[in-house]
């Protein structure tokens, strides 16, 4: 409590009568009792509230005193931007209402949207793993455009932050995707002739789309960590951001790392920071990961990189893989959707549904990586 005026603290007198001693201590000064005349400036407090028999108060009163003190101390401290001091609790019913009003970010591949339950959900972290060239960055660029779709067309009308660690962001590709998206929306608005759709379409131009994607380039893990931990300040200034993409979270952490336990700690801290951002600012976080080979019982399996503990970090996990010239997306982990696999394709217009339907027997037989490597071994 800053010692401006003791009487400003409403429970001061109640405290005086109950608390045996509060020691306050300013840097460099002797420890003195803060129940004496309060002095200006910040003071840190070591509080000992001893219940019976010294002061003659019961345990409940001691608990209440501690709670009053904590509330007063917290109320006087200046609040930091974006963080709430006390933990907000809400009932599951309120959470359900919030989820119903929340939108999803569509991917333009209706099969993928279906298995995700409507699209990429807000307030959750989604991880996309895949071998090189399967379409992870394409999906990220598509989502950076899709997040800006106006609400009357079913989008969330937000902005995007793109953090690039591999240098795979191509502006001309994003321009192509944006142009295709604008044309698609124009076709839809042809059916609706009301003013709202026309007006929204006027704002949805190439310049606007590109100017609302905020691009950051990070060259090593220190820059990436710094960027992520500085994001809250950026997000308070740009409150319309609804999507944060980190393209290539594995790349900076996979080489030049001698201390593996440090890597685990940093990654876990990063994961917690991401889910905390997603929750506090109501945005979606997309992370892309690479694949690595794991030798398990003399079998070679293709698994996501960064180790076992990283598997728990993201809330939703998608794995993209190839199956004889067709791309597939598998939902591996989700709190509300079942595991399933769907085909998709990358066209010049962007991320879309697969054109040819794959026969179901083939899709069912080669879903498990372990089975696939067994088949290959049998062939050899």
């Amino acid at each position, binding site marked *: 409590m800053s010692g401006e005026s003791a009487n400003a603290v409403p429970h001061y007198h109640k405290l005086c009568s109950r608390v045996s001693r509060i020691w306050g201590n300013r840097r460099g000064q002797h420890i003195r009792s803060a129940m004496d005349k309060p002095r200006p400036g910040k003071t840190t407090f070591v509080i000992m509230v001893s219940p019976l028999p010294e002061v003659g108060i019961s345990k409940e009163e001691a608990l209440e005193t501690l709670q009053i003190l904590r509330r007063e101390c917290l109320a006087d401290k200046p609040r930091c931007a974006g963080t709430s001091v006390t933990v907000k609790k809400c009932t599951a019913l309120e959470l359900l209402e919030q989820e119903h009003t929340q939108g999803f970010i569509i991917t333009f591949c209706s099969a993928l949207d279906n298995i995700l339950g409507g699209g990429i959900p807000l307030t959750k972290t989604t991880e996309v793993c895949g071998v090189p060239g399967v379409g992870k960055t394409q999906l990220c660029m598509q989502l950076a455009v899709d997040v800006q779709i106006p609400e009357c067309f079913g989008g969330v009308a937000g902005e995007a932050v793109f953090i690039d660690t591999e240098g795979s962001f191509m502006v001309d590709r994003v321009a192509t995707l944006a142009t295709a998206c604008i044309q698609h929306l124009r076709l839809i608005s042809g059916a609706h002739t009301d003013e709202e759709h026309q007006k929204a379409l006027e704002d949805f131009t190439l310049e606007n789309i590109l100017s609302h994607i905020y691009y950051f380039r990070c060259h090593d893990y220190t820059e990436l960590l710094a960027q992520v931990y500085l994001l809250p300040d950026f997000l308070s200034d740009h409150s319309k951001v609804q999507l944060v993409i980190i393209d290539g979270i594995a790349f900076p952490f996979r080489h030049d790392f001698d201390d593996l336990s440090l890597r685990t700690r940093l990654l876990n801290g990063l994961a917690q920071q991401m*889910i905390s951002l997603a929750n506090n600012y109501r945005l979606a976080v997309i992370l892309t990961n690479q694949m690595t080979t794991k030798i398990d019982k003399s079998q070679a399996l293709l698994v996501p990189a960064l180790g076992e503990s990283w598997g728990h*970090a993201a809330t939703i996990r998608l794995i993209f893989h190839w199956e004889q010239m067709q791309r597939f997306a598998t939902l591996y982990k989700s709190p509300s959707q079942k595991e399933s696999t769907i085909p998709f394709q990358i066209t010049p217009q962007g991320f879309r549904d697969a054109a040819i339907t794959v026969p179901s027997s083939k899709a069912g037989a080669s879903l498990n990586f372990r089975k696939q490597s067994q088949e290959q071994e049998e062939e050899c």
Partner: protein
Amino acid sequence: MGVLRAGLCPGLTEEIVQLLKGRRIKTVADLAAANLEEVAQKCSLSYKALVALRRVLLAQFSAFPLNGADLYEELKTSTAILSTGIGSLDKLLDAGLYTGEVTEIAGGPGSGKTQVCLCVAANVAHSLQQNVLYVDSNGGMTASRLLQLLQARTQDEEKQAGALRRIQVAHVFDIFRMLDMLQDLRGAMAQQATASSGTVKVVIVDSVTAVVTPLLGGQQREGLALMMQLARELKILARDLGVAVVVTNHLTRDRDGRRFKPALGRSWSFVPSTRILLDVLEGAGTLGSSQRTVCLTKSPRQPTGLQEVIDIGTLGTEEQSPELPAEQT
């Protein structure tokens, strides 16, 4: 130990206190350890009075020994067994979650830990009509999935809404907020001790590893201390306030890299009294299978190594309430 002062017990007057202070006997412990004959002589106090005083103070301040039968009676009246809503899991846990204990669910990614926690929350809120606190630290809590689980149990929307209102959700993503929240909860519950309705009976922490692992390991030792403080808070919550605590834990590799074991190390392994391990059913092979094996790895009541199979796609729907009371008695 209590400082001697006037009025602490009948017969302890202010002048006796001052005389004893003169002989440097200031607390009850000092008085219990002192040689009373000597004190009586030097302070000119009556020996009989001092002996009587010491007897009264010892009776007031020493711990009460309890015999086993009384302890058993007390446990029988104060412990409640809360069914999880999944019959095979209840078999493993010896009829359900015990209040006063910490139960741990460990498993790899996508093995179903969050689904089991949601099922427990839904069952306790709906069938047992008790309050639940769900502490979410990795974004797994989805209210629409909770609604799905409730809709499988009852079609009445009022009852669904009532059950959802009984589940409180707190989003905490770092350990300091979690400690703050648990301490607030303890304070709030201690104050409401008389009001038996409306108190939380189950606290689910999903997951405790997510908040602790950014701190463990390396040169600093604070991580371990913070983890043990969290453990202490959870155990106090369980024991003193009669709450069943459920935590989820991740799996890490063994030192030789062969098998999987629950994360957070050996120190944490002493905290929960019951531990179960979730794993994908081996041999099923196909992706999209929602079958999981549940294995009991630590229990104070059942032999370890018991295994059951559960289906996380249809959690708790095949178990209807008329079956359970027969199992519990």
